[in-house]
């Protein structure tokens, strides 16, 4: 019930706002803001989340189109919990920031934002593949409108590019989803789109490959993964501030979330085969994004490329497939939402005053706008990964995860996802080393941007009279800055719920990979028997009692940390009981 409320409340707000007369601009704005605040307040009900549990919580499952096996199935686990809260947290801030920036067609704008919020929340919470697709596509139209109507410059081009690019990817994903549905139904007699149910079956290796690529294409465009990233700079540059903030803050996370939730666990064999290439693209994205950002003259375009760089880091953490890496990725997703959202808000403040984003038009702004300067600097440093702020925690965990990447799957086989061709052993270290370079390059362009904006003498006379932040604007920035400090100094409440869910996902991946490997030919094969046997073994081997019975109806059994089975000495500091300890085969040679 809670999740239904969270997802549908913005939609309800959109309907209510749509009924208001057009002339009532102030009322429209306030009402929209109130609805987003209400959604945030309701989402705080997720505080009742039990962090020690690995399974689905707050499950809502009702048949929607029963004849087609489509359910209205929402649930949250440690992975999606903070992403949902990020969305409900950012949207009110975005609406608040747009008070002065959006002056025409205010009603339509508020409606678009609210529908957008519903779409984003739905993507994070949906467990039915069809429902997921509906929400995924639902995000496109409001975003198109926001960029195309309230943007500036070449906005139609940017909006069109955004929509076409994304839709192309999504269509293949739709085909894949339908294929899953049909083959699963034919094999088991149970036609369903339900993700937990589909997770109990594996597909053939060849099928997995194209299915994975179809899903991956859609998500890779959204991430954005090099070289499919070129829609992002245009979209950001031409979008209004509110659009940019929500685009960078939440929309990009839809892609990485999709990878983590669907593409990787559903098709583990194909994922393992494709991972080295994805990792290579991720690393290229990190370095390339940072390099190209340095060459930009437009502030928004610069930050857009910084997003490419950061999300490359996130992808790297996902592909590391260990607890530290995955948690680092999720944490960096949150941190990036806060810090890059903040950066765009800051640029938006400047745009409101001077109607330009060109770096050369500014300079020496610290003197007239000291409060702005201080807040902007904190956000900038968080984006640069300064320890003590939120960015460092995520980046550090990702680097550790990538560097210590070593994946043991069921049956003792060792996988290397993050590897370079022909470099079985030191591939992950090189990959992590190159990613660490991104830390340096990130500082290069961020400091350059900050200096061009804030330091030096005032070169444009107009800049001397710019007024500093007013109360509303401070209210927009303050939560972000506070959050970045809290996340950097005390990340525990953010990391703790992630761990069981992440471990469960790793366990599922491992089991399904082994099943895929043993599955010759094509078609669907059920896992259920195998999973039951493993669950019993896991229960016997570990000291930690299995998770309590309150789980979603079709959840996979959870097992405590089975992700990293140490081969010998390099154990973590905490004693990790390997529940699936089997005799390990010889380490594989080439990948």
């Amino acid at each position: 019930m809670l999740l239904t409320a969270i997802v549908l409340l913005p939609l309800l707000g959109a309907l209510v706002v749509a009924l208001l007369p057009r002339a009532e601009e102030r009322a429209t704005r306030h009402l929209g803001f109130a609805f987003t605040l209400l959604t945030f307040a309701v989402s705080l009900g997720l505080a009742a989340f039990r962090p020690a549990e690995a399974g689905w919580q707050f499950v809502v499952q009702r048949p929607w189109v029963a004849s087609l096996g489509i359910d209205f199935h929402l649930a949250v686990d440690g992975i999606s919990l903070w992403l949902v809260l990020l969305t409900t947290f950012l949207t009110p801030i975005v609406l608040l920031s747009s008070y002065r920036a959006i002056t025409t067609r205010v009603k339509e704008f508020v409606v678009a934002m609210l529908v957008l919020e519903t779409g984003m929340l739905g993507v994070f919470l949906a467990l039915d593949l069809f429902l997921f697709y509906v929400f995924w596509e639902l995000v496109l139209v409001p975003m198109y409108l926001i960029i195309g109507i309230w943007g500036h410059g070449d906005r139609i081009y940017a909006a069109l590019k955004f929509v076409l690019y994304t839709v192309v990817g999504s269509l293949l994903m739709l085909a894949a989803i339908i294929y899953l549905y049909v083959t699963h139904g034919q094999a088991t007699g149970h036609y369903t789109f339900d993700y937990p149910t589909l997770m109990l079956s594996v597909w053939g290796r060849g099928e997995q490959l194209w299915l994975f690529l179809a899903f991956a294409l859609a998500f890779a465009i959204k991430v954005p993964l090099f070289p499919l990233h070129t829609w992002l700079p245009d979209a950001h540059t031409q979008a209004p501030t509110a659009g940019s903030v929500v685009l960078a803050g939440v929309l990009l996370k839809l892609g990485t979330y999709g990878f983590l939730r669907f593409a990787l666990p559903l098709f583990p064999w194909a994922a393992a085969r494709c991972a080295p290439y994805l990792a290579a693209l991720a690393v290229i994205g990190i370095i390339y994004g940072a390099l190209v950002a340095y060459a930009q003259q437009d502030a928004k375009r610069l930050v857009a490329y910084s997003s490419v760089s950061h999300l490359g880091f996130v992808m790297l953490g996902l592909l590391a497939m260990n607890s530290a890496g995955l948690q680092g990725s999720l944490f960096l997703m949150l941190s990036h939402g806060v810090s890059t959202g903040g950066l765009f808000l800051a640029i938006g403040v400047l745009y409101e005053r001077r109607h330009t984003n060109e770096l050369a038009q500014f300079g020496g702004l610290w003197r007239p706008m000291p409060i702005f300067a201080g807040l902007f600097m904190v956000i900038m440093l968080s984006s640069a990964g300064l320890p003590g702020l939120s960015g460092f925690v995520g980046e550090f965990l990702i680097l550790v995860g990538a560097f210590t990447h070593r994946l043991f799957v069921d049956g003792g086989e060792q996988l290397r996802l993050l590897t370079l061709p022909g470099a079985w052993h030191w591939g992950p270290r090189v990959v992590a080393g190159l990613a660490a370079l991104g830390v340096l390059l990130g500082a290069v362009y961020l400091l350059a941007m900050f200096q061009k904006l804030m330091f030096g003498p005032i070169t444009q006379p107009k800049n001397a009279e710019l007024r500093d932040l007013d109360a509303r604007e401070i209210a927009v920035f303050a939560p972000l800055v506070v959050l970045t400090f809290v996340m950097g100094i005390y990340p525990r409440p953010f990391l703790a719920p992630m761990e069981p869910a992440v471990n469960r996902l790793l366990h599922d991946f491992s089991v399904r990979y082994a099943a895929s490997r043993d599955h010759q030919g094509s078609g669907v094969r059920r896992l259920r028997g195998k999973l039951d046997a493993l669950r019993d073994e896991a229960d016997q081997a570990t000291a930690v009692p299995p998770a309590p019975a309150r789980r979603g109806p079709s959840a996979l059994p959870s097992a405590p940390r089975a992700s990293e089975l140490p081969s010998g000495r390099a154990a973590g500091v905490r004693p990790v009981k390997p529940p699936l300890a089997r005799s390990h085969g010889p380490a594989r040679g080439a990948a």
Partner: protein
Amino acid sequence: MTKTFPLLWIPLLPLLGAAINLLCGRVLSRRAVHAVACGSVAGALGVVVFAIFGRLWPLAWAAEGTHVPARLVQTAYAWITAGSVELPVGLVCDPLSAVMLLVVTLVGFLIHLYSTGYMAHERDHARFFGYLNLFTGAMLILVLADNLPLLFVGWEGVGVCSYLLIGFWYDKDGTERLGLANAMAGRKAFLVNRVGDVAFLLGMLVLFAATGTLSIESLALRASDLLLPLHPLGLGPYTVAGVAGLLLFIGAMGKSAQIPLYVWLPDAMAGPTPVSALIHAATMVTAGVYMVARMNFLFMLSPAVMGLIALVGATTALFAASIGFAQHDIKKVLAYSTISQLGYMFVAVGVGAFSAGIFHLFTHAFFKACLFLGAGAIIHALHDEQDLRQMGGLRRPLATTHWTFLVSTLAIAGIPPLSGFFSKDEILWRAIATANPALGSTWLPALLYVMSLAAALCTAFYMFRLYGLVFLGERRGAAPASSHGHAGGHAGGHAGGGHAGDLHLPGPAMEAPLIVLAGGAALLGLLGLPEVVGAWLGIEHINLFERWLAPVVDQGARLADRWAGGHRVAANALAESHGLEALLLLLSVAVAVGSSALAWKLYRAGPSALVARLTARLRWFYRLVLNKYWVDELYDWIIVRPYKALAVVLFQLIDRLVIDRLGVHGAARSVDGVGRVLRRLQTGSVQHYVVGLVIGVTALVVGVVGAALLGGGG
């Protein structure tokens, strides 16, 4: 010997001070800002003093003779816990940290006090003191951290504060570009530091991958892991300790301004002088040395890396010292001198003389801070004049400054019985008396000794050149236009100080720290008297400093003996000879005195004709060192410009051209193209459509009938 103690207060107090000043400083009065800033550091100093002398000292006494260091610990809370990564916010205070804590809080407090006078005429008061407090807090975290990532928090924290403080006058009036140059200097410092930080990060990753922990104490217990060769990484015979040590040292190179990552330090002189004194002389730049000493167990397991450290240190010492000969800016001379002295510290830790290195760090903090603050007083008096060619004859008017400066100059030149002599001499002795099994046992000690001695010679010379040019002879510069009106007395807020002619004398807030620091520079040498003196006086273990630090810094040697079969840097045959030690001691004295005297003679009355003749004769050398060997220009051409060009090329070529134009627009245009071709079918002529219809129907009929016939017949 471990006890808990609320160590968190030590960094917390300055951080709270920073928060207050940065957030509310605007509404506080000058007095209040000063009180908060100095008070918070004084508070930290108080806690430090109590912790060390009240708690740690008794523990150390009790642990005397055992090899277990006395420690005060505190685990504040669990910071990051994810998977196998478990990092608490843990603080530890052992004898090594105690030394650093005293340096940071005591010298820091004195500099805060000094700043209340020096920055009296500045706007942005609160911002300055806020940053200064923030820096102090970060540095204290660095010193107290018990695990490497937390140390890294402090490590980068001081880097950020350095960036902010160097670029403090980001829009300084005067020339239009000056403010921007300050900001650029700050950026350069941060970026060069970050190069080192990336290496530090990688070093941490290597250590974690090999041992599964990043807690310093735990790492020290895993010597067997650290000695493992890195075959799985394809790095062959190198050990974990070697690779990680090298990476960590590169980080130290960046932070402590060694070759090749030193270029940020001279530019950092763009910041206010108290900043230079605190950050770029006494504390931040010494963080690298501290880190190496703290991780001595790691480095001792890899003699090759230690040899590298010593060589880099010696080269830097000599190189930087040579640049000091020709610089015109008083702060630049001191900057290069700092780089040079840091080189000495690295020579020390590179030969395993960790306590000697830390002792030099300790004495250097006092005399270098005194020199910088003195320089600040001079600059302040001359209304922001920094050029040596405009100075001279300031001995009488700036008496206090003069005497403290002289004491510190004597100290840095290494003239006994001041502190600098003892600390430097110990390093020289250990350099020649240590054998490194990984590099040459014959040539390395000699080389290190010769380079260090040469650097000492240069140091004494250019420091007395500096002294002579500033204080002796006649005033060369014209009275500069005053930057703040001199109509009668001074209104509004700066602590005392009157005028002598056109000079703006320092007030008591500025003079008191100078006196205290000079006193330290003079007397603290007694803590580290060399063994030779002890033998002469018949006192064993006369080096109190070494005794204090021994349990911590000897750990590495013990580990190497136990696990690496003694394959480590160790005293060589020369170390036994007290006679040789005494001889070299006298040689050091001779070199120092001789060089100083020469400089005195040449610059006694300002730059003399003799100097001009020498300069003309050695023109090539003069130009070389005046332009700092053109290293900055070299870096600009090799790194900075190509990077920018690469960024632009990548953007225009790959993003714009290949991906967008060829890829995205190409796809769109091909769709358009296909459509264009297909559109030609739409002729608008009905008859054409009929033809199409007929063809289609015929094909259908043939197909269906044919399939039926074939199916039925076949």
